[in-house]
């Protein structure tokens, strides 16, 4: 993007290095495209097991996104606006799944919600079984996707400031009304892009699901797990399904970028 003076501010050689960086990401995708068995593409991705996996992935990711929104909004508000001891520690812990290897998340969830786990024992006594169920998949996805929503929303909350909320409060609005009528509409674009990213992360979840939820067609075998399994016997099917996942991811990231761009004017509005 050119600035008003027309000065770009980057030396030319940067472009060469940037091109290498870009290639590192793009080339493997191109290589995968070249490996796709096009004549068989549609039959491969519309086989019964593929459709079951895709359907399950979309349903569980939608559910985890809703969970992320419900739990993530209060978390982001508390982190951005609240003031309490241990706030920084809480932020660090909320962001942890971003850097944690997914399989570690799976093990942690197993010892929480598993049959022998911290909460699992009481849940089992209450007749609720999470292991090997679709609920386990949603839990694993929410665990890894929540930070994306919290980070996006906390950033939006901070850059939006609280002037409007203060005015609304002086006009007699209760805190809940201020939240509903002023704060949330103000950060809606940030919330939308955070939700889209959470959805994308849920869709790609693999390690925690494999460790914690198991793998059964139509119940816990999401698209990434199906790809992992197909790879054993049918490389063509694995590549075709990978392409589907890439296409969905590109669409989702594009959407999120669009939401972010449209959010810029809203934030700088006087």
């Amino acid at each position, binding site marked *: 993007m050119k600035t008003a003076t027309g000065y770009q501010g980057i030396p030319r050689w940067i472009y060469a290095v940037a091109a290498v960086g870009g290639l590192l990401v793009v080339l493997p995708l191109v290589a995968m495209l070249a490996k796709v068995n096009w004549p068989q593409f549609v039959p491969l991705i519309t086989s019964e097991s593929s459709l079951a996996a895709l359907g399950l992935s979309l349903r569980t990711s939608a559910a985890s996104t809703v969970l992320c929104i419900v739990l993530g909004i209060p978390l982001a508000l508390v982190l951005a606006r609240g003031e309490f001891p241990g706030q920084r520690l809480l932020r660090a812990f909320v962001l942890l799944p971003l850097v944690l290897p997914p399989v570690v998340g799976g093990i942690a969830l*197993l010892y929480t919600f*598993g*049959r*022998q786990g911290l909460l699992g024992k009481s849940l089992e006594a209450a007749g609720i079984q999470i*292991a*090997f169920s679709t609920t386990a998949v949603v839990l694993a996805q929410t665990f890894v996707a929540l930070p994306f929503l919290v980070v996006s929303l906390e950033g939006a909350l901070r850059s939006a400031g609280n002037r409007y909320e203060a005015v609304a409060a002086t006009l007699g609005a209760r805190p809940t009304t201020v939240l509903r009528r002023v704060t949330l509409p103000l950060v809606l674009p940030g919330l939308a892009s955070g939700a889209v990213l959470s959805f994308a992360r849920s869709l790609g979840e693999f390690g925690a699901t*494999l*460790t914690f*939820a*198991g*793998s*059964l*067609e139509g119940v*816990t*075998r999401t698209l990434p*797990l199906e790809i*992992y*399994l*197909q790879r*054993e*016997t*049918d490389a063509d099917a694995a590549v075709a399904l990978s392409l589907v996942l890439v296409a969905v991811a590109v669409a989702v990231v594009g959407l999120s970028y669009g939401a972010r761009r449209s959010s810029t004017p809203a934030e700088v509005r006087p």
Partner: protein
Amino acid sequence: MRTLRLKKCIVGMSVALGLAGALTACGATAPAATPTSNSGASQLSGTVTVFAAASLKATFTQLAKDFEAKNPGTKVTLSFAGSSDLVTQISQGAPADVFASADTKNMTKLADAKLLDGTATNFATNVLEIAVPPSNPASISSLADLAKPGVKVVTCASQVPCGAATETVEKASGITLSPVSEESSVTDVLGKVTSGEADAGLVYVTDVKGAGDKVMGVPFPESDAAVNTYPIATVSSSQNKELAVAFIASVTSEAGKKVLGDAGFGAP
């Protein structure tokens, strides 16, 4: 020749093992590149890279140690993964000298691609066994018990060898299982049992033995229907075939059979 070896070493680093292992492998291989005049059978030297099925991890680590002790100056580099993954790696040019597969199907894939030197030798067999948590919460004592309602059974998916064996056993016995999860590797099945998530899992006899007291094994006669045979062969692109053949001979020797037998493997 030297540059070729160097390239192979670099490929080796990216494909298998840790960086340190690959570096020592390259270092140890270098002298072998210049053949000495007296290369008798007793003068084995250099590095042999063995790609072996994941279920062979414990036994082959032991066999490699024994081989190195018996033949000073040699080094055995091991890479363990699922048999089909290893076939893919070897087909893509991974520098393996020896390939040991957990089933004949994957070995045939390499033979069909003309990537084997000579024919494969069968060196072990493995059968399925029921693994249950030590407390055996669902009181499993036979294969039929696994089909009882409410029993959480985990098996391998039919796409992987242990799943194919499970399917064969089901067909032969007429018992239909409805697993709560079909895992993509036998270690994942074992994991679900050791963590207590599942009441029972179908794994190999050797997995039960390897897990020690974390699981209890329940043998069942129907397992005879699916005996898995483990073949081993020299890879045609091997740079050190003499050493490869010597390693295979040590696996099929009496001492080798004992190590395998102690781990629960059967004789071929």
